[in-house]
């Protein structure tokens, strides 16, 4: 029991949060400076979303996520096991609870939030959101009569040696090589007997990672087995104009590397897109989309404009961009899914109340001391 108390005292020690916050400040400064070379997304991944930050690939230091975990554990121990329940300490207790809730919201956001683009052509509809940064390997099975079945493997499978297997897939796939950024170049030299499809005529040249991650075009070389004479090595890259299709029993399955795509629980139909420009220029002044939200047999009309996003449960749809070529207009929405969206608001209110209460409770002794 005494040992347990000792551990609680150690883990709830204020010195842990002091040192952790100091390290967080260093990470914040370092990550901000590194953005210039790494780009926003990569800097965020390296410094703030990582468990370990390697110095020169040799020395491990705590990454942003590990530091936040230490702070959360310290706060949890302090709040639930080492707080004095005296009325004078209520303000501090409430403030700690607000901060703990803020960390909890951060945890939810870190693990259960996503951002991406929803692209809808005028008159068309879609519920597919493409992630800005992450790639996936998708198998589109066109055999079902009314719908296509999509089986997608996340970026965790985009590594050399990964094996892609699924009971619904009638073949096996082994990842031979992965390129973060690539471009197809005409093949020079001997074509291997194993190579099939585009790989017979083009090689995928590795390009340096672009700091703006959305500009990177992912590529992959795969070995397919279990399809008889279609077995072999294939090359794929994002945005390939000609998809790779395999004949399987009862139909075809298309395979591709693309941005991580997730279906929304509702469809967005673009009724009309409107753009206003500053007089005498082509510079956009404002743009807005009239949309129809189609969900479980219901239709709801809404307008999404530059400063008026549409919120549907945990999803927020922002008017992000558009494209037009004189032939048709396309509206591009930024879709943010954040289950922890409400936490910062509630936490901030609680922290303010806690600090306010603490000041009020400390006021008599403060007045006494001044007197």
């Amino acid at each position, binding site marked *: 029991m005494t040992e347990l108390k000792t551990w609680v005292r150690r883990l709830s020690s204020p010195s842990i949060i002091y040192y952790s916050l100091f390290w967080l400040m260093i990470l914040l400064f370092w990550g901000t400076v590194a953005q210039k070379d790494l780009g926003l997304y990569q800097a965020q991944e390296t410094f703030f979303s990582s468990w370990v930050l390697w110095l020169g690939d040799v020395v491990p230091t705590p990454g942003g996520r590990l530091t936040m975990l230490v702070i959360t554990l310290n706060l949890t121990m302090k709040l639930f096991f080492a707080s004095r329940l005296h009325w004078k300490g209520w303000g501090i207790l409430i403030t700690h609870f607000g901060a703990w809730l803020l960390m909890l919201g951060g945890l939810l956001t870190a693990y259960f939030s996503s951002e991406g683009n929803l692209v809808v052509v005028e008159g068309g509809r879609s519920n597919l959101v493409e992630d800005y940064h992450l790639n996936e390997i998708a198998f589109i099975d066109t055999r079902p009569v009314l719908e*296509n079945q999509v089986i997608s493997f996340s970026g965790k499978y985009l590594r050399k040696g990964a094996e892609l297997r699924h009971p619904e897939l009638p073949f096996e796939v082994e990842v031979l090589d992965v390129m973060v950024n690539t471009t197809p170049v005409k093949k020079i030299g001997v074509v291997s007997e194993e190579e099939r499809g585009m790989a017979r005529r083009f090689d995928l040249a590795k390009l340096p990672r672009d700091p703006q991650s959305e500009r990177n075009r992912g590529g992959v070389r795969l070995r397919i087995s279990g399809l008889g004479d279609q077995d072999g090595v294939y090359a794929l890259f994002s945005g390939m104009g000609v998809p790779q299709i395999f004949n399987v029993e009862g139909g075809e399955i298309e395979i591709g590397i693309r941005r991580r795509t997730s279906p929304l629980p509702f469809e967005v139909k673009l009724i009309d897109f409107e753009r206003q420009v500053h007089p005498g220029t082509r510079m956009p002044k404002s743009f807005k989309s009239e949309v129809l939200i189609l969900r479980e047999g219901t239709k709801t009309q809404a307008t999404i404009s530059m400063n008026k996003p549409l919120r549907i449960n945990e999803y927020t749809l922002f008017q992000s961009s558009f494209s037009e070529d004189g032939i048709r207009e396309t509206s591009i929405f930024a879709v943010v899914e954040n289950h922890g969206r409400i936490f910062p608001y509630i936490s901030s209110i609680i922290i303010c109340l806690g600090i306010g209460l603490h000041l009020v409770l400390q006021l008599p002794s403060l007045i006494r001391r001044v007197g």
Partner: protein
Amino acid sequence: MVLSSVISGCGSDDIKIYRVPKHEDAGSPKPVQKENGHVHRPFDYDVPSEWNEQEASGMRLASFKAGNVDISLVRLGLAGGDLTQNVNRWRGQIELSHLDQDGVLKAAEKISVPLGNYYLWAIENPEHSQGGMLAAILRQKDAVLFIKAWGGPVETLALKSEFKEFIASLRVHRHD
């Protein structure tokens, strides 16, 4: 415990399965790259009598020769459909300076055909041996068609009417 279960459970959507309506792809059949590398075209068309059809390979859905002029039909995703970038890339290929967006649009003819509307550019550099180009961009729902004729300046631009007739004849291939 809660924390560890949240962290360990977060990889559960590494493999996703879902269904999308087939209407997403309706009206825009995709070219099919078979295992032997040949492309089966999703469009039918009438080939002008002077043109010789070649084996389509790589990114091409169809390929022709009219004398020394090379004619190609390519289909790419929507991301490849920026007019200004494409026109300036072509102009660069025959050593012409770049145009701004207004210049690109002014230089284009906008034409309607059964498959949709398209822009056509007749680009010429008489000082370049391969300085003739007819280039068309036809945007579909989920893809962009590029039709290009490239060769000597005089013989390429002489193909303009046949080139337009070819694009007008493009139609979605029907599987009977």
